[in-house]
């Protein structure tokens, strides 16, 4: 155990003392996964609301697809996005392959089903008559949605955290569609793969700790929001 700690201490020295690129890679990681999470929330929460509050034919089938997609291997998503975005692919004219934009698209596709799934679950956990009650009490449509969202806050923030956690720790899709380019698309997970294959295990470990620390910081912030005025 002390060896591991020693290793970590040395690793921090390595990171601090050497390439300044680490800070850039860390910031890039948060920006890409943050943007993808925000998009996933913007699309996923309303979709989840619609699925949770309405009844339509094939609804169970849709939920089944979403639940499956929640566990979709990111590398498969990456491969599909890669095939769409390469120059010879149907969206090749966008010239997005091996860019941060391509990474945001892939991560958005991975995170959205997770956000939708958790949103549906958290809204369905509310008392089923709550919307009617709010309507009776004179709340308008938007106000009803807002009040429901507040009631489901615990679950909705879990949706955000699960989405963000799923993509910031993801490596396959980011490597495939981003290309792990040192100065534009290398993120913490793909940097760890590179350092490991170079035999720079200490540096890889230090990057891993940094990734955990970042993930912890973001989730802690969300948890503070989630738990506010609840204790």
């Amino acid at each position, binding site marked *: 155990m002390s060896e591991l700690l020693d290793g970590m201490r040395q690793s921090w020295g390595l990171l601090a003392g050497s390439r300044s690129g680490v800070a850039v890679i860390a910031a890039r990681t948060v920006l890409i996964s943050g943007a993808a999470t925000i998009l996933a929330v913007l699309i996923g929460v309303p979709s989840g609301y619609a699925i949770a509050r309405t009844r339509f034919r094939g609804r169970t089938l849709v939920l089944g697809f979403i639940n499956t997609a929640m566990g979709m291997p990111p590398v498969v998503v990456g491969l599909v996005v890669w095939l769409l975005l390469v*120059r010879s692919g149907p969206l090749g004219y966008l010239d997005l*392959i*091996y860019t941060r934009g391509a990474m945001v698209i892939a991560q958005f596709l991975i995170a959205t089903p997770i956000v939708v799934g958790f949103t549906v679950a958290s809204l369905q956990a509310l008392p089923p008559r709550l919307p009617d009650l709010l309507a009776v009490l004179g709340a308008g449509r938007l106000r009803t949605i807002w009040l429901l969202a507040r009631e489901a806050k615990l679950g909705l923030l879990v949706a955000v955290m699960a989405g963000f956690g799923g993509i910031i720790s993801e490596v396959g899709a980011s490597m495939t569609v981003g*290309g792990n*380019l040192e*100065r534009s698309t*290398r993120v913490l997970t793909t940097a760890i793969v590179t350092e490991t*294959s170079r035999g720079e295990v200490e540096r890889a470990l230090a990057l891993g700790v940094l990734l955990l620390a970042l993930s912890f910081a973001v989730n802690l912030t969300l948890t503070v929001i989630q738990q506010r005025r609840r204790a």
Partner: protein
Amino acid sequence: MGGIVRGLCCVFAVVSALTTAAHARPQNAIVLATTTSTQDSGLLDVLVPRFEKESGIEVKVIAVGTGAALRMASTGDADVVLVHAPDAEKKYVGDGDLVEGRPVMHNDFVIVGPPEDPAGVRGSKAIAEAMKAIAARAGFISRGDDSGTHKQELALWAAAGVDPRSLAKREETGQGMGATLNVADQKRAYALTDRGTYLALRKRLGLTIAFEGDPTLLNIYHVYVVNPAKHKNIRIEGARAFVAFLVSPVIQQVIGDFKRQEYGQSLFFPDALPRRQ
């Protein structure tokens, strides 16, 4: 991932080589320490069985990095080595570990780039000129993974007097040759690759060869026997038989023809034949 696997293979190879050396070895078996490239290309799968059949001598092939192969020679753990690092080899020849060296073959690195050649590399007289043209006018995709190819690329920049870190349009993938060629293809950029990998992937790439043939791009393979006067238990007759086999006209022809049908050009060019003008 590949690095780890390769690392484990190296460890395994060295350990098995050491156990081979430690135990009494069968009279008719030699240890060949060589590089992964000869193994990965499939060339040894053609040559070794043929040698074993013709000579009745078994060959234990230990495919490791050139450095590791040379270290096996310096500890007397191999009988014969086939390597491609002339500068590094000199030290071992000087120390008396390697004797009776012969050039066997070469392959080469090539610069590939978009067919329209935006940097105007194609007219270059020498590799330094080509590298300067790329530096000035186009993107370059580097392995950036500390591999032999990456080291060769850095040496080319140094020889051209260009600081690769200063190039805005040079990117490092930190990945293998195939992935790096994909990125270069999509980004319409240039890349340094070994000819074999490029030929194997050429069909699905838009890249064409922009520069080739400079002597510094050559990868020259020499075969040596490990000095029996310096190391114990070297199977010198078997080692010499293997060297003689590799440089024989028939086998030199086989090396030149290896996969030539498949790729339309040679992967390895024989060097042991008397040169024709």
